[in-house]
């Protein structure tokens, strides 16, 4: 009975949090639909759905004239690429709210909710978000696909409905793949980079990816024929698949599309297998990265997590001695301890100073060894000046 109660309570919290996280995807610093959120989202999806429908129509129109005999996979691959780009672009706009953040920690931390419930709710909300966009923007194109390919094969209404469903499922899978793959990039940067570098680099990478996505999508619209010709070339490669071809994600989902449509060809089966595997891997990796990057993120942002530096015993002894002897004022002390900090924490600076010293010592050794003297006699006009060897001086000056 206790277990049932716990599950019921957990499920209740999950629903509340899914709703909250889903809402937060529309109410954040990047996207802010404060008023009429539902209407604006529907409007956006409606606008976005027209473009893929138009592309699908221009791609498949030919099958009204010539019956499709297993060649439409090229158009499907082309179309899947476009959908993945669109979902990728939407993901990049939601870059900041893909992972749980400090606000989530501060607000949900004191509440009686299990961390697993929070993570699961976040994951479900993301799937819902992607599902809504993937299905929404493919609502018209799925009809176009079902209509042209169904008619070409002489399918009945039920089969056409099945085709429509397959189209939506595959586009959802492809969309989820690109969404979680991009989320992984974000999570990996979060794990690997230091807080300051991460904050700066994250924005640059995000901007770069948005520009790249927009550019490629624009290219799709601007010169569909040229791109389509490129895709047409892959028809010939079907018999002789290249490594690139087998590792091009939109083709994996094209394979899945064909297999779900009933194809038994080994080529498509291999691609479909890769699609399912890749999707599973990115989702599992997202879960893992979320857990790791969340705790690392918190360590970086929480005031308690800041590194507390405790002066070493050597410094505690050396500091008063140095202050009494050579570091006589604040400026000298500040400069000395600044360089001390730089050299003690930066391997690059340590290596550099060591290389200077090494070069200088070596050069002096050669000089003294060769001339047997440190001082040189230099002629300046008619005067002879005794000076310290330039080698000796410049050896230390790089």
């Amino acid at each position, binding site marked *: 009975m206790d277990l049932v109660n716990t599950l019921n309570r957990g499920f209740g919290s999950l629903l509340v949090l899914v709703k909250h996280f889903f809402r937060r995807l529309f109410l954040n610093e990047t996207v802010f639909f404060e008023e009429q959120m539902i209407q604006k989202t529907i409007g956006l999806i409606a606008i976005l759905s027209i473009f893929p429908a138009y592309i699908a129509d221009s791609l498949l129109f030919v099958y009204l004239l010539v019956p499709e005999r297993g060649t439409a996979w090229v158009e499907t691959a082309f179309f899947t690429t476009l959908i993945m780009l669109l979902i990728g672009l939407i993901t990049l706009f939601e870059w900041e709210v893909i992972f749980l953040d400090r606000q989530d920690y501060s*607000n949900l*931390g004191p509440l009686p909710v299990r961390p697993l419930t929070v993570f699961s709710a976040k994951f479900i909300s993301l799937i819902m978000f992607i599902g809504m966009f993937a299905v929404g923007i493919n609502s018209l194109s799925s009809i176009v696909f079902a209509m042209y390919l169904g008619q070409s094969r002489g399918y009945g209404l039920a089969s056409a409905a099945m085709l429509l469903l397959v189209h939506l499922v595959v586009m959802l899978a492809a969309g989820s793949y690109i969404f979680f793959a991009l989320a992984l990039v974000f999570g990996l940067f979060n794990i690997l980079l230091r807080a300051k570098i991460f904050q700066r680099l994250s924005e640059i990478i995000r901007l770069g990816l948005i520009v790249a996505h927009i550019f490629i999508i624009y290219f799709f619209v601007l010169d569909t024929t040229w791109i389509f010709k490129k895709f047409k070339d892959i028809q010939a490669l079907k018999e002789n698949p290249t490594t690139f071809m087998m590792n091009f994600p939109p083709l994996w989902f094209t394979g899945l599309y064909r297999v779900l449509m009933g194809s038994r060809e080994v080529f498509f089966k291999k691609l479909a297998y890769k699609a399912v595997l890749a999707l599973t891997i990115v989702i599992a990796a997202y879960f893992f990265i979320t857990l790791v990057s969340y705790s690392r993120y918190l360590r970086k942002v929480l005031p*308690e997590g800041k590194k507390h530096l405790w002066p070493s015993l050597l410094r505690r002894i050396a500091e008063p001695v140095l202050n009494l002897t050579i570091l006589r004022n604040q400026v000298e002390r500040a400069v000395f301890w600044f360089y001390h900090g730089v050299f003690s924490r930066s391997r690059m600076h340590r290596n550099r100073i060591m290389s200077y010293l090494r070069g200088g010592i070596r050069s002096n050794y050669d000089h003294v060894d060769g001339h047997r003297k440190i001082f040189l006699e230099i002629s300046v006009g008619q005067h002879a000046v005794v000076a310290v060897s330039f080698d000796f001086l410049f050896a230390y000056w790089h």
Partner: protein
Amino acid sequence: MLELKSVAKKYGYFKAVDAVSFAVKPGEAVGYLGPNGAGKSTTIKMIAGLLEPTGGEIIYQGRNVWKNLVWFKERLGYVPEEPAIYSHMSAYDYLIMVGRLRKIKESALKHKIEGFMEIFDLGGDMHSEIASFSKGMVQKVLISAALLHDPEVLLLDEPLSGLDVTTALTVRELVRRLAAEGKIVIYSSHILEIVEKVATRVIILYQGRVQADDSVENLRQLMKVPSLEDIFNQLVKHEDPGALASELVSLMRKG
């Protein structure tokens, strides 16, 4: 009873909280005092289940809090020091979410929220987004969120920060009333006058360690000083505030 047994929090070599032990009985309002960086908020966060202790145990009603976090949080109300609240939500939506996650019945929840908002003078603003709120208004929302489910244990970390005088007095009176009703209240602050009026007992923390733990009256008699401020100064301040102020003034005028 809420009990801390040699609770510690270390960051590398730095001991933010060092072997802190005390127990709070139901009906007690304990003032948790200390200068900045003494480890007050760290202790409060460890009790609230936000920071895991690196040593010791926190026990409530015989159960280890960190092994029964959800169970303990169901009984806990917490007002944080830093209000990192969801600023895109309205106060009403935020409290609805908190109430639902705390399993408060829907019919009672809406009534409670409206009541809290009216008392805190936020009735007209409760549907506005929190981003547009002042610090004091945010604090009122956080206090409401902490009290909504009638908690057994109340952790207040600088709860009056940014509040207007009327609300501050209301909260002060509320803390007294809740303690009288048998709740456990831990009130962390560095405003000594308020703690003196609210708390039945004070714990003074300095450099992560407990320096004193007794009622204000006993401490006064023990240390032969007239106020909590003097007790605090004797225990944690080793410099003369007047001399420090003079030094600051001379530094300002230098150059």
